[in-house]
């Protein structure tokens, strides 16, 4: 009885201490060189989507920000992550809206359930193209419930809609939940890392991967920056 009462307290202490002494890895992802020109997407074949974009959107293969910032880069702990095998229970969503995937890259933990939502007035088919995981291809007409899926093995999976060939996205299935996506300014942050040695990997759908080794000794913030060499083609 007594141990049972003590348990929450013990847990609190554990959680607090781990948070107090947790380090953070943060930094910026940038590029050098000339990135590929992103082409405007012609959605005239799908008027219900076209009208959602008064100015045509462009492809998202390479998205950049000011000061050579590179967006949509998945930065994650590829070795040493303390949470490997701990599958998060919170649901994550991948939305099809305006014949676009939101987000363009969806990171997730191996085995984590995610919902695919169709917010459009048109049918989509969700056709991820894994090489390691199992391939499936499902139709999702408007108004149908979310498709619930998960992947068993770590992999970067291209996602396509065959009906709307301009729709391209990625699932980043990782062995950890210590991940972030570089945003407009190219910045990322991986908090809550206990003391230890880590390998941080940055993955970009066009420019591949880069890694950096970091050692966290306590309650500190380590700066790690990644620079990708952009190619125009």
């Amino acid at each position, binding site marked *: 009885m007594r141990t049972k009462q003590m348990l929450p307290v013990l847990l609190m202490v554990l959680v607090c201490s781990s948070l107090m002494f947790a380090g953070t890895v943060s930094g910026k992802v940038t590029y050098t060189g000339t990135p590929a020109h992103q082409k405007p997407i012609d959605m005239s074949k799908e008027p219900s989507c076209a009208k959602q974009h008064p100015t045509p959107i462009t492809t998202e293969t390479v998205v950049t920000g000011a000061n050579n910032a590179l967006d949509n880069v998945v930065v994650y702990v590829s070795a040493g992550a303390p949470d490997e095998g701990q599958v998060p229970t919170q649901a994550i969503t991948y939305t099809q809206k305006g014949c676009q995937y939101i987000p363009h890259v969806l990171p997730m933990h191996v085995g984590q359930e995610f919902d695919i939502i169709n917010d459009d007035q048109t*049918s989509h*088919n969700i*056709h991820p193209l894994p090489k390691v995981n199992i391939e499936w*291809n*499902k*139709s999702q*007409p408007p108004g149908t*419930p979310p498709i619930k899926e998960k992947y068993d093995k770590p992999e970067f999976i291209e996602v396509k809609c065959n*009906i709307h060939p301009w729709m391209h996205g990625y699932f980043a299935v990782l062995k950890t939940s210590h991940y972030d996506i570089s945003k407009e300014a190219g910045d990322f942050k991986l908090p809550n890392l206990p003391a230890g040695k880590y390998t941080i990997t940055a993955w970009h759908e066009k420019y591949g991967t880069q890694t950096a080794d970091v050692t966290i000794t306590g309650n500190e913030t380590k700066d790690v920056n990644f620079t990708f060499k952009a190619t125009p083609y």
Partner: protein
Amino acid sequence: MNSLKPMRCISASLFTATPGCTTLGTAILGLILAAAFTVPASAQDAPDVGPLRPVVVKPMESHIGNLIGHSTSDNAKYDYRRFCAGCHGVAGDGNGENAVWLDPKPRDFTIATFKCRSTLTGTLPTDEDLFNTIGRGIANSNMPVWNTISHQERADLVAYIKIFSPRWEHEKAGTPITVPPEPPVTIESISHGKALFTKLECWKCHGPHGEGDGPSASTLTDSKDNPIRPYNFAIAGNDSRFKCGSTNQDIYKIFMTGVDGTPMPSFADVIQPNDAWDLVHFLRTLQVHRHSKENEVLRAAHGVIPPYVEQKTSSLAPVAPADNKTSGGGQ
């Protein structure tokens, strides 16, 4: 080997009047024809198929009714090399020596993705599915009808293609979907099927008249990035077959389970079983040159498919979007 000389004689006689050849040629041709049925197997072999090397293969099994196929049987090893490897490759990766010339490409058994399944998308097909595919061949592709080899040999081949992917060791085949008995064809079922065809946007690829010319048709690629065409219903003749069969039950299974490895998705989660039959009935009317009960019903209705009016008793789940009021499907 003594057949070489007469062969040369026959081919020569086709172009020039080689003395002694023309008369001899016919006799020898008859001899060769007769020999084709009597010579031992080794003499019929393709040049690259010699005696079986002692290959060690993973012991896999297949179960089709009472038949049990074994990957380790001589049947399996011999037949695979003799009949399958030319296209599917010795390693089962779909890169046989003929593969470069083929479109669509031969299946890659190493990823265990199969087009013709009675099971849900992403799952392994049943042994029976594979057995039927071998026996039926695949229409509009280079996969022939292998009804010349015995059922036991086919079962052995089903077991043999399992050695190429580890999935067969870790996973069970999917559960076949339930196909309810087919309701009678009526003009109403055809009309509802047409509404579904519009609502589910089958026409985006297959075209408004099923001619394979929808707005997305020209952009389609299979999962290995090879261009691929959507099925053209309109050119189907009386003896036409789909890739995965020719009966109404087969069409039902094709769109419900999807054609894995191609752009054709699965609709099992979005079409109710009875609605699916209505769609089947409509699809048959797209095959305008084919004699079918669906086309008879349509002819009796003077060739006009009335617009679908949703009934309260319909088994349909609610359909959300306002601009699709006339159609059903979805849940």
